[in-house]
């Protein structure tokens, strides 16, 4: 990734966010309202002794899902929206290649997501009076390590979008599927480990939320999971790009 592309995408994200501040604020309010409804809905049923722990898990799971949705959706949204908004062809004229440009865009989006997540985290904890004793730096470090697997998923869907254009159904299915992925336990090594983001979410829960010591094997598993899904995503996108260029589909919507 090139620094000039990352700063360019950060600037673009900032300009769009500032230009459409109402959209940004209302999206944040929507997330908060959705979560509070969920939180108090579940709280009513959680009366056992470990109820407080369940609520901590719920808040933490929600934060993980918010981040995962943003990281996964960044590239897919770019490809689909830019095709509709009309300048996707110009992204393909990037000398470093469109994939690198999209990766820089995803990184910029993830960094902005983390900033928003920080605000949402404190608002959620304050509104629900459920104060998690988590180290945000540790939390973000795990998220950044696990995020490439989600970006890989986004590239797979974006690769399909280049050829098939309408991929909303698969996209919506994966968005819901992410709720399951962040809740699964992928550590220590088990069949669920091979699902995208699952080991990352597990490591975040074990290390950041539950305060277990950092296991370097787990860290390696998370890194491998990210690398494999990112590689698959890049390959699928490259195949989609080639097919779209052969059939003159870039930009057609």
């Amino acid at each position, binding site marked *: 990734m090139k620094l000039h*592309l990352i700063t360019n995408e950060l600037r673009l994200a900032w300009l769009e966010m500032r230009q459409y501040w109402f959209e940004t604020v209302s999206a944040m309010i929507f997330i908060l309202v959705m979560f509070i409804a969920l939180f108090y809905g579940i709280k009513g049923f959680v009366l056992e002794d470990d109820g407080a722990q369940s609520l901590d898990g719920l808040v933490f799971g929600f934060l993980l899902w918010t981040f995962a949705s943003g990281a996964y959706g960044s590239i897919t949204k770019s490809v689909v929206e830019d095709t509709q*908004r009309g*300048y996707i062809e110009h992204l*393909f*004229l990037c000398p470093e290649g469109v994939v690198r440009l999209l990766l820089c865009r995803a990184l910029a989006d993830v960094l902005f997501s983390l900033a928003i997540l920080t605000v949402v985290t404190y608002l959620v904890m304050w509104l629900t009076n459920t104060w998690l004793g988590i180290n945000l730096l540790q939390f973000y470090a795990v998220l950044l390590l696990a995020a490439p697997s989600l970006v890989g998923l986004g590239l797979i869907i974006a690769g399909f979008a280049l050829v098939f254009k309408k991929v909303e159904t698969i996209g919506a299915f994966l968005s819901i599927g992410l709720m399951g992925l962040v809740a699964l336990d992928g550590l220590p090594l088990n069949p669920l480990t091979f699902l995208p983001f699952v080991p990352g979410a597990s490591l975040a829960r074990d290390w950041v939320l539950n305060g277990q010591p950092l296991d370097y094997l787990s860290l390696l598993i998370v890194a491998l999971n990210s690398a494999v899904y990112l590689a698959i995503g890049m390959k699928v996108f490259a195949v989609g790009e080639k097919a779209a260029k052969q059939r003159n589909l870039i*930009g057609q919507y």
Partner: protein
Amino acid sequence: MLELQGVSKAYAGSPALQDVSFSIEPGEIVALLGANGSGKTTTVQSICRLIEWDSGDILFNQNPTRSSTDYFRHIGAVLGGCRNTNWRLTASANARYFAQVRGFKGSDVLANITRLQTQLGLDEHAQKEVMKLSTGNKQKAALLSALGYSPELVLLDEPTLGLDFTTVNELQTIIKSQASEQHQSFLITSHDLSFIENICTRVLVLDHGRLLFAGDIAELKAQMFSHELKLAPLTPAQMESIHSLWEGRFQIRADEQCLSIQFDTPAQCLPTMTYLHEQQIAPEHCTINALSVEQAYQHLVAEERA
């Protein structure tokens, strides 16, 4: 600078480009003409590598473009329609964004964008997002993005689409000055042949993916008829008599009662005028018109097809 060597492309067996070869030198303004479906946009998209062509090669500064995307730094493009800018940003924010995508930033680029924004008359709309601009100003915003980082070659696909007369004139001035002062080359596809005639030094004519003609405007005009005589109504016998009066290079078409003759010099139609006078034939419609480049070009394509 840019060289196409026998480029061919087919979609599902149907040829879109057939063995197309041409080159563009620095500072040249070249027009790519052709009817809808003739292969103009496919050519531009091939140069931008937005499509994979089947055979042949495209070289930029003698380097094959198939193996490297580095040449994207040196080309700017305004593609067909309004598919060139982020509608949520202002024109200059777009220009800065796309310049940085190509790897250009800093005070020189900013100064160039500011100069071009003024030259394009976009200063008064500096604070507006592209979506709030008129069609003409959207096109100017696209041009600002394409020229902002001073690329060596600028590809303009139908740049006058939706522009009024004044804006077209301004566009001509800008393209001419960029070519002469900055030595930028332009490859322009357009249906607006008067626009092409005013600014282009060379013309390429495509038809059904084949390059029919490559040369300067004067050469193209020399291949085409410059005048047209139309007479109507006439009887078949009168039409036949008139046919025998013509000499030199000409082309006659007879549709029901209307006779249309295209020719090179005004003197060629004098025997027909004399004949009409002598025979006291007074057709309701008798017009002699200088053919526009557009009409002449259409006849050239029709002739080639025949």
